[in-house]
């Protein structure tokens, strides 16, 4: 194969990989944050990744994170949240409630799956 042709194809493919990695999927789910009886509940679905993977919530009020799973066997079921020392394999189907205490402003919460290929963040404002 011609060297120049090869370099052009290579560049195109590298750009393709960059697009795949930078997201571009447009799979943004609606944020689910609600306050009931003075407790803030943040719901995130874990199935083939986390959605929504960016959530904005209020700081300064008791907060609970609800991880929902529906037949999730992939990496997203093995959840690690380093900042609160949480690591667990979520049940295949169900809801797992994680107490976050009272989050402070400007300290975002990051969760990753065990292998590190999926992640989500919750910003507290």
């Amino acid at each position, binding site marked *: 194969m011609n060297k120049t042709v090869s370099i052009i194809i290579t560049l195109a493919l590298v750009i393709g990989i960059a697009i795949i990695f930078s997201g571009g999927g447009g799979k943004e789910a609606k944020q689910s944050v609600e306050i009931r009886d003075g407790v803030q509940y943040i719901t995130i679905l874990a199935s083939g990744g986390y959605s929504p*993977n960016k959530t904005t919530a209020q700081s300064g009020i008791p907060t609970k994170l609800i991880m929902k799973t529906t037949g999730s*066997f992939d990496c997203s079921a*093995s959840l690690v949240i380093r900042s609160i020392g949480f690591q667990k394999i979520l049940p*295949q189907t169900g809801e797992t409630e994680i107490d976050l205490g009272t989050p402070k402003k400007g300290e975002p919460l990051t969760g*990753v*799956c065990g*292998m*590190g290929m999926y992640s989500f963040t919750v910003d507290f404002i």
Partner: protein
Amino acid sequence: MKRAQVDLKKETVQIETDSEKSSGELAEFLSIKIKPNGYKLSVEKEITEKKSDDVIWQAIPIGLVFLVLFFLLQKSGILNLGIGGQTTPATSFIIGLIASVSSCLAIVGGLVLSLSAKISQDNVSDTKTFLLFHAGRLVSFAVLGGVLGIIGNAVGINFTFTAILGILASVVMLLLGLNLVGVFAKNKITFHSGVFQKITSVFRKIEHKTFTPLLIGLGTFFLPCGFTQSMQVAAVASGSFMSGFLIMFAFALGTLPMLSLLSFGSASFARSKHAPLFFKSAGIVVIGLGIFALLAGLAGLGIINPLFNI
């Protein structure tokens, strides 16, 4: 021998000697002496270098096409079937089939591909080695699954341990990938006691042993893979040796078609006339998967921020 002069740029050695031997004999004789250091002498310049340069320009796009297809498959969401209900051996077989083309392929498949290609390249009795690897994997998954069923505690699921093992696997993949592409072969000066040469010689030694492929098969039980870990939890929950045994055996059986395609596929490519192209393309794929697995592993350990969501 009176005088020797080395020209690195031209890759020539001038030797003045009062030996009776012909230049061909002399080159052969000296080659034997310097072979342990990774050098070789010949009268005619070897032209293999030029040829492999052309192959790499074909291998890079081919390798990248496979990487693009792989990541597109992950992004497409086809693999998130959402299998509900109880985990039976039948469902764990299907989950194994899915897992074998999922992102787990980046680590387990990448490792299998890199080791297989390297073993085929080194002309070890590859069929026997691969059979031992797959047998080791099936048996150890089944037995360890059974053990999880009895003790009811997930020993394999220490996140930090599996993440470190995953990083180790990705480093092995990167080294083997670079080796397959031929990056190290290009060095004109070899490092007499260089780290890489040591690694290569250790690898040469262990790939001939019967025990090693069995052990690597067992090791894949602990490699980070969300599917494997979910099945381990299911085996724990099953509560008996027999059901844990069956769940993990069926899961490993489900991953077998894809993994054996990778290992036996490498062997048959290695014997075809496209062998140089195959090794280099496989090297590119393995390097790509290795980088992906390494970055993901570091993110999983919290060392770097997650760079991607795939």
